C-alpha cells in the first residue's frame, strides 16, 4: 500500500543507490557504485563473473550491509536494509534456482507468504484460486497455467512465471531477475520477454541481469556495466552497441573472440548411418573428421542433444549404426570415455561436476587409472597432471583444493572441459559449451576447442548460439524436429540460411544458398 503512493516521486525514480562500497576481507567487491531504477523501466545489469552484480543485488535485497553509501527507496534514505524490510518496501528477486515448492499447486506457491484468509481464519481456497487466475491473466499466462496444477508438472518457463507471480502477489514493484533466460529453452524465451514487457507497462521497475547482450538490446531501456566491482557506465540502450558493451565489460576489444579457422581436417573419425532414436530422432546421418569442428544447430527439442547423448551410449538407438574408428561405437558412457569418445554435457550441475568435492577430485575423476602405480593412487602424479591442466585451461585462482560448488560458472565449465581433456580424447562432443558463462571465459573455451583440432581431435559442438557456431565450426548441420534439414559449409554460413532450415520456413525471395542439402 505504502509502496504505490511512493512511486510518484520526482522523475519516477523508485530505487537509487549512491556511492555503495562493500569490502570482503580487504577485497573491494563494490567500489563507489551508483545505480538507479525508474518506474516502468527495464534496467539491465551486465558484467563478467565476479564483476559484483550479485553483491549489488544482495545489497538491495538486504542480504549484505554496505560499508558506505545510501540506498534510497520509496522516498526514504537507508544506510542498509534488512531482508524483511526490503521485502516490505516492495523489492523482490526471481532467482535462477526457483524458490518454489515442486509438490504444491501453483496457487499454494504464489500465496505461500500471505494466504488469503476467510471465515474462522482458515485459508480461503476459492479466493486464492481467483486471485491466482487474476495474476496469471495479467501476465497473459492464464491459458497455459492452471492455478490447481502441481508445480513440478510445469515447464521451466511456466515455473518461472509462477515465481514472478509470487513476487507480484507480495505487491513487489522492484523486481530483480537474476539471469532468467539462462534456465530457459529458447522456445520459452519469447514468453518471458512478453511477461517482462507487461510488468514494465504496469509501471514496475525491473533489474535484468544477463550474460546475453542481444537480450539487453531486445528488452532493456538502460544498461549498467560493472567490472571488478566498479561502475563502468550506464547507457541508454538506444545509444550504445554490442562492441561498446563488450569493451566496457572486458576492458579490451574482443576482436579475437574466435580463434582463426586454420585447422586441417583429416580422416573420418566417427560415422553415423541412418539412426532412429525412440520417436525423437529419425534417419540421421553424419560424420566427423579428425581435426574438424562439426556444429549442430537447431531449436531446443530438435534432436541435437539426443544425438549427442546417443553418440556416447546415453540414449537407446532404435535402428541404424554408429561406427567409430572403423568399428562399432562403444555402447556405454564408461566404455566410450575409455575409447576417447567423450561428451561434455549441457547441464554441468547435474551431469558435469561432483559439486561437494574439490577441483582436483573432479579433474582427476575420469583419469584415476593414469595415477595408479602398484594398485595405489600416487598423489604426486595426480597433482602434477591436475596442476598442468589447471594451468592449460587457465582457471583462476589455481587453487586445486577449492570446492567445485564455490567456483563461478565459467570456472566450473572450464573444470568440466579440463577433466575430459585430461583423458586425451579423440572425439569431444560439446553440448552448449558456453551456456551461462561470461564473454572472457567463452573466448577461452573457443580457444581450447581450436587447440583440440590442431592435435587432430574431432569436435562436435551443439549450440543454440549462432555466432559461436559460425565462429568455431567447419560445417554446420541444422536439425529440425528430429531430422537433419541441411548442411552448411563455412563459406555459406549465414543467420538467414540457418534460421530458415531450423524453423523449416520457405523464403521465396532469398534463394537457398549453395551447399544447402535439403
Amino acid at each position, binding site marked *: 500500500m505504502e509502496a504505490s503512493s511512493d512511486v510518484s516521486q520526482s522523475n519516477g525514480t523508485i530505487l537509487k543507490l549512491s556511492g555503495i562500497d562493500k569490502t570482503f576481507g580487504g577485497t573491494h567487491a563494490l567500489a563507489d557504485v551508483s545505480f538507479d531504477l525508474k518506474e516502468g523501466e527495464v534496467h539491465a545489469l551486465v558484467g563478467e563473473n565476479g564483476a559484483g552484480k550479485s553483491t549489488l543485488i544482495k545489497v538491495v535485497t538486504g542480504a549484505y550491509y554496505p560499508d558506505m553509501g545510501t540506498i534510497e527507496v520509496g522516498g526514504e534514505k537507508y544506510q542498509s536494509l534488512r531482508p524483511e524490510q526490503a521485502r516490505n518496501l516492495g523489492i523482490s528477486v526471481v532467482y535462477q534456482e526457483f524458490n518454489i515448492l515442486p509438490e504444491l499447486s501453483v496457487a499454494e506457491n504464489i500465496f505461500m507468504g500471505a494466504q488469503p484468509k476467510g471465515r474462522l481464519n482458515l485459508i480461503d481456497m476459492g479466493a486464492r484460486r481467483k486471485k491466482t487466475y487474476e495474476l496469471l491473466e495479467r501476465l497473459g499466462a492464464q491459458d497455459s497455467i492452471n492455478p490447481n496444477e502441481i508445480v513440478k508438472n510445469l515447464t521451466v518457463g511456466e515455473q518461472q512465471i509462477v515465481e514472478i507471480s509470487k513476487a507480484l502477489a507480495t505487491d513487489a514493484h522492484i523486481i530483480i531477475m537474476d539471469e532468467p533466460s539462462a534456465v530457459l529453452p529458447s522456445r520459452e524465451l519469447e514468453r518471458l520477454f512478453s511477461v517482462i514487457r507487461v510488468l514494465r507497462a504496469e509501471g514496475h521497475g525491473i533489474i535484468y541481469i544477463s550474460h546475453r547482450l542481444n537480450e539487453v538490446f531486445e528488452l532493456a531501456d538502460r544498461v549498467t556495466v560493472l567490472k571488478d566491482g566498479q561502475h563502468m557506465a550506464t547507457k541508454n540502450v538506444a545509444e550504445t552497441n554490442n562492441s561498446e558493451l563488450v569493451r566496457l565489460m572486458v576492458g579490451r576489444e574482443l576482436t579475437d573472440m574466435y580463434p582463426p579457422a586454420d585447422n586441417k581436417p583429416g580422416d573420418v573419425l566417427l560415422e553415423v548411418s541412418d539412426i532412429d532414436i525412440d520417436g525423437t530422432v529419425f534417419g540421421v546421418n553424419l560424420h566427423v573428421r579428425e581435426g574438424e569442428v562439426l556444429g549442430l544447430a537447431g531449436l531446443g527439442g530438435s534432436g541435437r542433444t539426443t544425438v549427442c547423448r546417443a553418440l556416447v551410449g546415453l540414449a537407446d538407438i532404435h535402428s541404424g549404426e554408429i561406427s567409430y574408428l572403423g568399428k562399432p561405437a562403444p555402447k556405454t558412457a564408461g566404455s566410450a570415455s575409455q575409447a576417447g569418445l567423450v561428451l561434455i554435457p549441457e547441464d554441468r550441475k547435474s551431469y558435469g561436476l561432483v559439486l561437494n568435492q574439490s577441483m582436483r577430485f573432479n579433474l582427476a575423476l575420469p583419469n584415476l587409472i593414469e595415477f595408479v602405480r602398484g594398485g595405489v593412487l600416487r598423489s604426486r602424479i595426480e597433482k602434477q597432471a591436475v596442476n598442468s591442466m589447471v594451468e592449460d585451461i587457465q582457471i583462476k585462482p589455481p587453487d586445486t583444493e577449492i570446492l567445485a*560448488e564455490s567456483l563461478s560458472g565459467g570456472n566450473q565449465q572450464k573444470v568440466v572441459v579440463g577433466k575430459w581433456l585430461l583423458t586425451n580424447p579423440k572425439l569431444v562432443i560439446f553440448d552448449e559449451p558456453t551456456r551461462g558463462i561470461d564473454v572472457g571465459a567463452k573466448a577461452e573455451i573457443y580457444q581450447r576447442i581450436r587447440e583440440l583440432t590442431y592435435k587432430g581431435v574431432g569436435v562436435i559442438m551443439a549450440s543454440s548460439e549462432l555466432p559461436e557456431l559460425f565462429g568455431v565450426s567447419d560445417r554446420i548441420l541444422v536439425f529440425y524436429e528430429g531430422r537433419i534439414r541441411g548442411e552448411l559449409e563455412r563459406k555459406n554460413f549465414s543467420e538467414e540460411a540457418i534460421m530458415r532450415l531450423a524453423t523449416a520456413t520457405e523464403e521465396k525471395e532469398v534463394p537457398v544458398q549453395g551447399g544447402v542439402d535439403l
Partner: protein
Amino acid sequence: MAVTFEEASGSFTSRSGKLMTFVRKNGSIFLIYGLIILIAGTAAISSDTFRSPSNMANILRQSIILGLLAIGQSLVILTGGMDISIDMMARTVALVIATLFAMFNSDPGLILPLILLGVVVGVALGGVNGLLITRTHANPFIITFGVAFILRGVNLAISTTPIRGIPSEYLRIYDTKIGIIAVNVIVMAIIWFLVWLFTTRTRLGRALYAVGGSPRIARLSAIRVNRTLVWAYVLSGFFASLAGLFVLSRMGVGDPGTAEGMTFQSIVAVAVGGISLYGGRGSIVGTLGGVLLLTILSNVFNLIQVNIYYQQLLLGLVVLIAVAAYRSPRTVRSG
C-alpha cells in the same frame, strides 16, 4: 583501487591461504580431536584412575568393536547409503561360529577354519545387501533394515541362551598382550591405517566418494557405480564379521545379545566424525575420532558411575552438539 575477486582469492595460494583452506576443509577433524583432548584432558586431571596406563590401554581395546563396525558404516555412508544390518551381521557370525565350536567339541584345530568361515558369512551377507540394493534401486536404509530383521529372526532361531564351548585358545584373540598393550590394539591400528590408505589412495576408495557425491556424474566419469556400491556393502559385512569374531573372543560364549545397539552407535561415530550422511564427503580419520570420543565418554561415565540412563542422555546431547557444530555456513558466491 579496486581488486577483483579473482585476484583476491588468488592470494589463497599463498602459504597462509593454503593453511586456511586446509583448516576449513578439515574443520570437523580439528573439532573432534579438539573435543577428545578437552574431555580426556579434563578426565585425566581429575581422575588418576582414568589417566592410569592400564585404563588408557583398556580404552583402546574397548574401542575395537565400535571401530570395526564404524569403518564398515563409513564406507557405506560415503556412498550415500546406510547399513542398518551391521549389528545383526556381527551377531549372526558370532552365533554361527559359536554353534560350530560347540558342535565339534571345542576343537582348537578348528579356530582358523572357523574364523575364515565367519569372514565368508559376513562377506556373503554384505554381498546380499549390495546386490539387493543395486538390483532393486531401493533405498539402502530399507533394504538393510529388512535384512537386519531377517537376521534377528535367524539369530533367535540359533539360540536365545549363551552358547558355551568356545575353545580357550580362541580367547587369546582378546587377551594376548605385549606389555600392557593388547596385540589386537596393534592389529586394529594397522587396520585403521590400511582403511585410510584404501579410502584416499585407491580407485575404489575414490569411487566411493564419487558415487556418494553424484552417482550420475560418477557413471559419466567411467566409474562402475553398481560395482562400487556392492563393494561398499561387502566390506561392511566383512568388518561386521571381524567385529562378531572379536566379541566372541571377548565374551567367551556365543552371546545372543552380541552387538545390540551397535548400528546406532556406529552411525553416531561416523556422523560425529564429520562424514556427511548425504554421502561423498568426510574422512575415515574423522570416524576414528568419533569412535575414540564415544569410547572415552563411556569409559568416563563408568568411572564416575553415571547412571546408564543418563549415559544415553549425554550421548544424545553429544550427537546434537556435533551436528549443530557441523552446520556449515553457506558459501557466498560472487558474480
